[in-house]
């Protein structure tokens, strides 16, 4: 087991290395660099000043040179200073992570909470009305462009009924503290999370359903029945434990999707999260942040897969590393 994990970790590092090269070279191709952005249209900026700023921002380096100096610092945990926020990237990420984690984490949890039971139910009643309705609703969910869905929800609940805030994370006027503050935050997160869950739950539900169908037709389920186990135990224990195996692996794979999704949702609801910042960084050519962000996600993804592989071994005794 230990060697396996070590081996995997080494591979992860290798992969991260590849990712960084890929990302850096792409990011480096971006035409509008930060300096030309902030100096744009500023009539009195002289070439000398721009050059000075470029050096200050380290934009004067070539691709290879730039990459290695970046890599060098990165290895020491220094991902440079965000141009836009004038703070170390690591700090910026740390600062904006909570919102994203809250959004993504809660949504992920809810998605699983919905997907698993409904998927199982649909599988047990394959071809029944229940099955069709669940699947249909789930698929309608994943067939909606998130921004479209979000806009409509906003229109109804925030603008129309005025029962939920339009955007942002807290109500500015009032200095809530403690529980009240939490409640206020929650209120602001309702819509984003709804969008997230509705547009995301479908694929997982479908996945659960398929696996359940597969398991239900397995011999050992018949054995369990032959033992005289009540149906709910057959499903809840014997079948479920086996569907769990693929679901575990699924969870690891959810991570990149979650963060990509966060980019859109956060920007629509003006949540102060990593994705939102990343979007801004793209438009501003804030290369250090982009690199930091993308590497962060990449690492998260790899760890996610690693963890789920380890969990795999936990839920499936046949698997041993």
């Amino acid at each position, binding site marked *: 087991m230990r060697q396996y994990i070590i081996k995997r970790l080494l591979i992860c590092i290798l992969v991260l290395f590849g990712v960084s090269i890929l990302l850096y070279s792409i990011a480096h191709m971006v035409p509008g660099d930060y300096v030309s952005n902030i100096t744009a249209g500023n009539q009195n900026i002289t070439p000398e000043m721009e050059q000075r700023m470029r050096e200050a921002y380290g934009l004067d380096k070539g691709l290879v040179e730039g990459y290695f100096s970046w890599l060098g610092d990165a290895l020491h945990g220094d991902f440079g200073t965000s141009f836009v926020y004038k703070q170390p990237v690591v700090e910026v990420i740390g600062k904006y992570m909570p919102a994203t984690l809250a959004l993504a984490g809660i949504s992920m949890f809810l998605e699983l909470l919905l997907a698993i039971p409904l998927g199982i139910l649909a599988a047990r009643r394959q071809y029944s009305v229940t099955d069709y309705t669940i699947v249909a609703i789930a698929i309608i969910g994943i067939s909606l462009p998130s921004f479209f869905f979000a806009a409509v929800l906003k229109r109804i609940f925030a603008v129309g009924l005025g029962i939920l805030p339009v955007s942002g994370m807290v109500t500015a006027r009032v200095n809530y503290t403690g529980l009240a503050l939490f409640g206020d935050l929650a209120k602001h997160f309702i819509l984003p999370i709804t969008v997230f869950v509705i547009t995301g739950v479908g694929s997982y539900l479908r996945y659960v359903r398929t696996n359940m169908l597969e398991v239900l037709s397995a011999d*050992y389920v*018949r*054995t369990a029945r*032959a*033992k*005289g*186990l009540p149906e709910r135990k057959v499903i809840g224990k014997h079948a479920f*434990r*086996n569907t769990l195996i693929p679901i575990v692996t699924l969870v690891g794979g959810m991570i990149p999707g979650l963060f990509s999704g966060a980019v859109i949702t956060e920007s629509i609801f003006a949540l102060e999260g990593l994705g939102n910042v990343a979007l801004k960084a793209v438009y501003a050519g804030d290369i250090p942040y982009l690199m930091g962000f993308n590497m962060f996600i990449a690492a998260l993804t790899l760890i996610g897969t690693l963890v789920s592989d380890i969990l795999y071994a936990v839920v499936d005794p046949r698997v041993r590393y």
Partner: protein
Amino acid sequence: MADKNQRQELKKIKKYNLKKYREYNKQMRKKRVPESEYLTKMKNPDNIIEFDNLQSYFYTDVGTVKSVDGVTFDIPRGKTIGVVGESGCGKSVTSLSVMRLLQGPQGQIAGGEIRFNQQSTGRALNLAKVSMKEMEKIRGNEISMIFQEPMTTLNPVFTIGDQLCECISLHNPEMSKKAVEERALETLKMVGIVRDGILKNYPHELSGGMRQRVVIAMALACDPQLVIADEPTTALDVTIQAQILDLLRDLKDKINASIMLITHDLGVVAEMADYVVVMYAGRIVEQGTADDIFHHPAHPYTIGLMKSRPMLNQKVDRLYSIPGNVPNPVNLPEYCYFKNRCDSCVEACSGPYPSLVSLSDTHKVSCHLHQGEAAHKKQTGGKQNA
């Protein structure tokens, strides 16, 4: 043209199936089934199971498959019944019908009775009708089953202990965890597994033979009145087969349970069964004591089977094999299903399906060769027996 009415054909089938499914689901949803619906009377109190014109159908896209079509036979208490026949002749479906394990809604018991003589309550239940609740009480407790595929019949993610104890404590809720484990080990000993720590093992850690023993142990755990063994050895390699068979044989003496042994291996039957039922294409073509079947086979099919099994004492240059193969199970013909493979057809064979006639009080056969002359045969049969 042909294509067209084929399509219509299929549409009709689909409609029909849907109707059947709906009925089935309605049936399943019923929580409580009034006793009156499934209480019945045993024909003979010494029997543990009585199949009475059992009909188990599969409603498939291409039409209704009558896997079991009007099967009637009894399983006396403490006796072993061998059910033989080529694969796909409805042996397994019969057994699954007893357990009510047919894959609904496609597979259903379409008619007939399966009378079960429940010792614990002294009632006679019609298993074809009982509610799932009742059934769950019976399964694994009074009737248990041994499946073909030891590789897949055990749940890969639970330990042997879990799966075994689960079964025991389920049917004996009063037993303490400790007692349950002891019982489990006991049964395992009974099937010849003494290795300690076995309870902690996972199925994939055991050999095929071992697993089959575990499966058997599971079946015996609650000392049932009837054990259904569905091809318990086919999936195993020969040496293991032998072991398992020995096991089953002395188990047969150890536990005073009836065994319904389903196999296509006549040898096994010959060694173990008291009575033999020969099935062909979902129907019983011949049934009787082991002696009747093995020494006085009456039905051409049985005869064929006999011929086709290797004998040590007599030398044949080439094993006999029955020509042709089982007719398509969908909409079978009206005449004898075996007709087209039969080498001793008579005119009557083109007539309606032959009914089951008694050659002796134990020996029954359904073949035109024996129609009518039943009475005469009876005596001669009797003589021969004497």
